[in-house]
């Protein structure tokens, strides 16, 4: 593994920030460093040649795509999706006619499709307004397409079975040219938007925000800032879902939330 020191990382983040407006200065160090090393190895570059290439917009877009981690699954943590279906969504519907959902950092869209399938099986797809955002436009384009490699579908199928859906995951995709092509009508009502959690403004109010395994790439300072945005974006008594091994207890405004389900890491906003 190539060794990249902190000063090198600073040079890279400063350049990307000033030249292209993306701020990685408050990303968690060890994973960010691994992403940089990965890019250096993939393109056979050293720090100086990487900095030179980063002057160009086209390469910066590619860089953005590779620096962000886009490994995700449909129905990751099936028990989480069961709790959403059995507890959280029914609870939202007690007080609201419509369910407003934000997938923050939606990556290639697996969780958005999972949500759409879950809602469809509850006959609630027409009662939901889903907004899915990511800072990377390339990955958003891929998400909109809803095409996944068949190899990944094995895992997705297993998750779906453990989620205990009403049918089979096969009901929702076709095998076309060795790709699993998801049923687009599932996400016909989804609004896909380019949005950067680091500098993006609040744009709506939601009943449920999903941001699972995204903030693990941020340092505590940035985590606090982003949590503030989620807090403002939630209706009072709205829900925030984070990854199973994430926690809000070290955050500034942790006391404005309560844990609704500790195992699945679902929080509820209780104070404005």
């Amino acid at each position, binding site marked *: *593994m190539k060794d990249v020191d902190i000063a090198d990382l600073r040079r890279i983040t400063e350049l990307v920030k000033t030249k292209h407006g993306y701020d990685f200065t408050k990303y*968690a*160090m*060890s*994973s960010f460093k*691994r*992403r940089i090393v990965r890019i250096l190895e993939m393109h056979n570059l050293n720090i100086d040649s990487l900095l030179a290439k980063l002057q160009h917009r086209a390469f910066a877009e590619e860089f953005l795509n590779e620096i962000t*981690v886009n*490994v*995700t699954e449909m129905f*990751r*943590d099936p*028990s989480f999706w069961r709790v959403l279906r059995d507890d959280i969504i029914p609870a939202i519907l007690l007080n609201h006619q419509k369910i407003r959902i934000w997938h923050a950092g939606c990556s290639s869209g697996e969780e958005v499709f999972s949500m759409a399938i879950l809602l469809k099986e509850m006959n609630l797809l027409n009662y939901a307004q889903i907004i899915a955002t990511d800072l990377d436009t390339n990955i958003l384009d891929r998400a909109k397409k809803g095409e996944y490699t068949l190899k990944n579908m094995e*895992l997705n199928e*297993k*998750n779906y079975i*453990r989620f205990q859906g009403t049918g089979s995951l096969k009901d929702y995709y076709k095998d076309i040219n060795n790709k699993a092509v998801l049923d687009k009508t599932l996400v016909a009502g989804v609004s896909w938007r380019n949005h950067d959690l680091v500098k993006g403004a609040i744009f709506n109010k939601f009943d449920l925000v999903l941001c699972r*395994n995204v*903030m*693990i*790439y941020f340092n*505590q300072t940035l*985590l606090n800032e982003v949590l503030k945005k989620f807090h403002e974006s939630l209706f009072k008594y709205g829900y925030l879902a984070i*990854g*199973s*091994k*994430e*926690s809000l207890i*070290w955050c500034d405004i942790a006391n404005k939330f309560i844990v609704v389900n500790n195992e699945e890491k679902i929080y509820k906003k209780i104070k404005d």
Partner: protein
Amino acid sequence: MLKFNLHDRYKAVVIGGSAGSFQGIVKILSKIHSDFPLPIIMCLHRLKHVRNGFVEALSIKSIVEITEPYDKQNIKKGQVYLAPANYHMSVELGHYFSLSTEEMINNSRPAIDITLGSCSYVYRDKLIGILLSGANKDGGLGMKYIKDKGGLTIVQDPEECMIDTMPKAAMNLTTIDHVLKIEQIVQLLNELHKLYRK
């Protein structure tokens, strides 16, 4: 009595293991002292989609409590940590854990190379790395990072391993300070415990 030439400036012990390492780990955790002076950071290959049960199974005979840390959780002395299912686990310069869902490495998440590599960066020559039985080469590079930073490297004696691919990978990549049976690893850790009590 074995002489391991230890000192009392170590800051952490990191353990990697895969197929065939479970019994060894259980034995180590059942025989160390309850006031072991360093954090023990473990990355063991495990089923990706089974979140619960592994800590419980390891805990049955363990003297010390084992936890799967949350992202950004501080590392404390005398605690035993296990990398959670389906996450890579790193240690950060501020002595806390960070988790990630990056691509699998050596077909593994958690990957031992990632945990060992990040520990070597943070603890440098004040780290003891132990690699146990396993069926792939994950951890080999991690042991090299530890040695390159001046840490102490230990592998389970291939003779004793159910599957020796993992320790042998490390032995091929770097200098291993001690090749030990589980019983001797326990002795080493207990010797360390004595040093810190003085």
